[in-house]
């Protein structure tokens, strides 16, 4: 190949990637795993951090305060003789029979399926962790 020809950026990247892949690794010394595990054996156990909250506490406080204010405002408005905003909202909620909902076979079949799937998931997970490869 003509040594005077300049490589394009892509060709240079390919050439260097191939060179690094074939010759760029430095083997870790023998026994390194054991030495690390020895150090870990005397090191403190990893600290499990709780997952971050979805919303910070101050947001919950603000939302609660806002809800209280809204409730007080609506109650204050409803104390007058005219039909209030609150009573208007309450009237717009459709009424339904709880007895009818709980007597539906669909609800109980849904709950049964959920319990069955959750139980199956727990059983399979336990089997995978304990039984798969205790060596």
């Amino acid at each position, binding site marked *: 190949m003509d040594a005077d020809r300049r490589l394009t*950026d892509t060709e240079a990247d390919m*050439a260097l990637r191939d060179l690094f892949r074939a010759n760029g690794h430095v083997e870790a010394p023998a026994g390194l795993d054991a030495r690390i595990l020895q150090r870990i054996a005397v090191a403190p156990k990893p600290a499990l*951090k709780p997952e971050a909250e979805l919303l910070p506490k101050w947001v919950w406080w603000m939302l609660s305060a806002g809800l209280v204010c809204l409730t007080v405002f609506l109650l204050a408005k409803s104390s007058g003789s005219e039909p209030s905003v609150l009573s208007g909202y309450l009237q717009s909620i459709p009424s339904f029979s709880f007895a009818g909902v709980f007597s539906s076979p669909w609800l109980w079949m849904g709950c049964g399926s959920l319990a069955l799937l959750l139980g199956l998931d727990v059983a399979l997970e336990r089997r995978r962790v304990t039984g798969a490869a205790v060596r």
Partner: protein
Amino acid sequence: MGEERPIRATPVNEHEAIALAARGDHHAFAWIIGEYKHMVHTASYRILRHREEAEEATQDTFVKAYQNLGGYQGGSKFSTWLFSIAYRTAISQLRKRREATGSIDDLGAHEPTERETLAVEAGDRTAALTKALAQLPEEDAAIVSFYYLEEMSVEEIVTVTGLGASNVKVKLHRCRKRLLEILQHELKEEAWTLIAD
């Protein structure tokens, strides 16, 4: 009823190994070490350029990773998270060495050994690459290694090193040019066979 056996499973994948190791399972962490020791050692060696120091940095990296596994949220690839620990550990060790020796002259001033020189003369590509990388600043040698060897994206290198994306791109561009110059000089005609292979 038989005696209850302790829960100690051989992980079947990285995700499971991380979950088990985060609960203190040394067996699972040994699996992680086996998977990543060469990569972490390579990154440490590219920065420190000293076998014993690179091993020490590699050990420190894995101990830190073990102790902080609970903080790994899975937002980035595990390898990226591990490399960021390795990079910071090696850079910190390099700074300590410089402070101890009171010198900044060793920045990229790795003198090739006689064996390396002979190997390069014999057309040994590994030696030529090591020699070429030794002529780059340590941080840059690690960055090109991440890019070409570990095939990390610029975004991943930014995460690992904490440098800006434009800075990483500029460094990669300069290093590529410099590496090619050095390799062409060291390997002479053979350098041109690199792209023909």
